[in-house]
């Protein structure tokens, strides 16, 4: 007969606080996009979040489970999808991405905590694959968006990632890149806000930098060795890192606790592999940006990487402890 131990004293955080931190950064990004584009991105974000919650509710009702809104992961998924959409993405495309994320990538695997693929990455990959013109068409940030629903009058602009993909030279200044003054997704262009969010999340220990730093370094090294644009090499590296969803994916989807390794050394390996996959997708892929596809590609490997990294580090630790 073994004693049953009941822990009654909690020192840690709750699941909700993790979701709350991410939602806070999403809210900041939405406010910033309101300043640049007007009301449309805000409404798009709210509709996408609403769709994600509705889909989760329907999935819970169909499978006769208790509603699982409480942990806030559906809100995070909806918010992340909206941030990766273009400001002029049709509402139905964003809703389809959210529905795919919840109904295909999340709930069939058992809901939050059990999904293999990152739902937000899966949703955006689905939308990119099915409606590339809706998702990858961006408005000019200088003009602003006065139109709410009818976006046919908007003159589409090429994003930096698209310019790099076609082998052309981008003339965006670093300042424009940092302040989000370039065509791109709602939440992924404002590099300064993203970096501030990263610092906040890292200080709150919501994300760890074990995967992010190797990921960014790997991308930078590959961009340095195999540049896609002529001219200044360092400027090319800067454009690679700040264009597309590279940083956004590195901050939010590479640190999703469920679909990435948990062990520190496993996270480092995961970050490096994802960085390689992202750059391969950018060089040889069909779309201008392959961050979501690269993360989806790596997600199933995370558990294998995690176990292997733990085995090695546990073995080393035991040997080291024995020696001491």
């Amino acid at each position: 007969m073994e004693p049953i131990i009941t822990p009654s004293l909690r020192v840690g955080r709750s699941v909700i606080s993790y979701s709350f931190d991410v939602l806070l950064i999403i809210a900041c990004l939405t406010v910033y996009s309101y300043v640049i584009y007007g009301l449309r991105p805000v409404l798009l974000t709210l509709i996408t979040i609403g769709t994600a919650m509705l889909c989760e509710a329907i999935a819970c009702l169909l499978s006769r489970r208790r509603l699982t809104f409480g942990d806030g992961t559906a809100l995070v998924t909806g918010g992340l999808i909206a941030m990766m959409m273009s400001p002029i993405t049709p509402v139905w495309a964003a809703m389809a991405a959210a529905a795919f994320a919840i109904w295909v990538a999340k709930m069939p695997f058992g809901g939050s905590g059990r999904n293999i693929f990152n739902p937000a990455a899966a949703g955006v990959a689905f939308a990119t694959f099915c409606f590339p013109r809706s998702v990858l068409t961006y408005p000019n940030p200088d003009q602003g968006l006065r139109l709410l629903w009818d976006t046919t009058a908007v003159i589409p602009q090429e994003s930096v990632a698209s310019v790099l993909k076609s082998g052309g030279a981008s003339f965006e200044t670093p300042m424009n890149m940092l302040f989000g003054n370039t065509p791109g997704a709602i939440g992924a262009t404002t590099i300064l806000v993203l970096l501030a969010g990263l610092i906040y999340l890292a200080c709150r220990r919501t994300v760890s930098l074990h995967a992010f730093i190797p990921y960014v370094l790997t991308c930078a090294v590959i961009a340095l060795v195999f540049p896609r644009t002529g001219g200044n090499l360092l400027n090319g590296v800067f454009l690679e890192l700040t264009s597309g969803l590279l940083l956004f994916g590195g901050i939010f989807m590479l640190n999703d606790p469920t679909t990435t390794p948990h062990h520190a050394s496993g996270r480092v390996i995961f970050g490096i592999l994802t960085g390689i996959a992202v750059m391969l997708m950018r060089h040889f892929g069909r779309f201008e940006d392959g961050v979501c596809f690269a993360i989806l590609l790596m997600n199933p490997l995370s558990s294998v990487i995690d176990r292997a990294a733990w085995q090695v580090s546990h073995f080393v630790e035991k040997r080291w402890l024995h020696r001491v």
Partner: protein
Amino acid sequence: MNSAKRGIPMLLDKGVAAAKPIVVLGDVKRVYLPLSYGDQRRCRPVVKDFDTVMAGSVLAEPIDLDDVPLISSVTGVVAGMSEMFHPLYGQLTCSAIDAMLFESPTDPVTPTMPEDVDADTIMKCCKQAGIVDELDGVQLHLKLADWAATGTTPCLIADATEPEPFQSSAYAVLRAHSKPVQFGLRLAALAAGIPATRIALQTSYSRGRKLAERFDPNDIHSIRRRRYPLFDKEPAEYRGQCGFIGVQACLALYRAVTDGTPQTSTVITVTGDAIDEPRNLLVPFGTPIEAALQACGVDKTVGLLLLGDALSGVEITDRSLPILPGMTCLLAFSDPIKKRMRSCIGCGQCAAVCHKGLLPYEIARRYENLQYERLSALEPQECDACAACSAVCPAHRPLVQTVQQAAHSMGTIFVDWGDE
């Protein structure tokens, strides 16, 4: 990996109970003394119903000659037998005694180290006095004999660290009986043939530092770490080789050797927000938990009653259970502090705090998926149930419980039905 950073911040809340002196629970009505502890120890009664027994007299002889006899903790009348289920010890067959008198053991005004005692005498006294070590609930003479047989233990440590939040009984005993505990520790070391002794004490808080000043610095192993669990309880020069003994067992051994007093009582910390007067209570063995709670002024609405401290304690509902050797803390909270359990989000906090470097989330996943044959690769048997993983889990999962169960079901493909 730097294991010193592992664990969780220590949440010490010893407060009122530790500040007050030990109080004797004098007016206990009835005590329940177990003839058998699960399958650990069995005794044959030598008294009949309605016999009058004196405190310290033998109630039952052990069936196995290596075991200690069952000794009456009070003077009173034998009132029959009763069966009860104890969450720590399993099924108990108890002898009920209607108590008439309980006298707390006393020490001489100026305690001295007994002269002219040899190891055999100490072992004999220890066995006759029925001393059980409160650290692990093992009979002290067995532990001493074990150390004496192996002969490789370089240092014996009286463990007064109490890293968990509320318990302060070892501290209280050490403060009230500094010299007897120290002499008892030396006697135990003498019996086990161990050359060095230390008293391990937390000096990260002022009360511990003041207590440490009473002793010679060479007799104290002071621990300043402020994270739970403590795993530097051993001095650096003897790491991984020391033997541990409880403070109350040291005191009982000293009394047994000096005047042959058997161990009949224990000091238990009774605290929690449902208790009006938290204190360290000296109770005779077999006192029902209800009596200890009443003596400290329990609130009517106790939402959660824990036997043991907040992190490693066991929830109990039956207040008639007796207080037995090995119990040193009783917590009563008005709020059940139970939160809804969610599924694992894979944050990895449990692995980050585990001082053994295990992966509790993965062990729990494999255990819950009935992948018993894949458990051994994760080494769940290394878990020492410190419960740090459960305390940090944001999804409020009972991880330590699952890991402990996993450690026992390793290598089998059969479902653990939990009947034996």
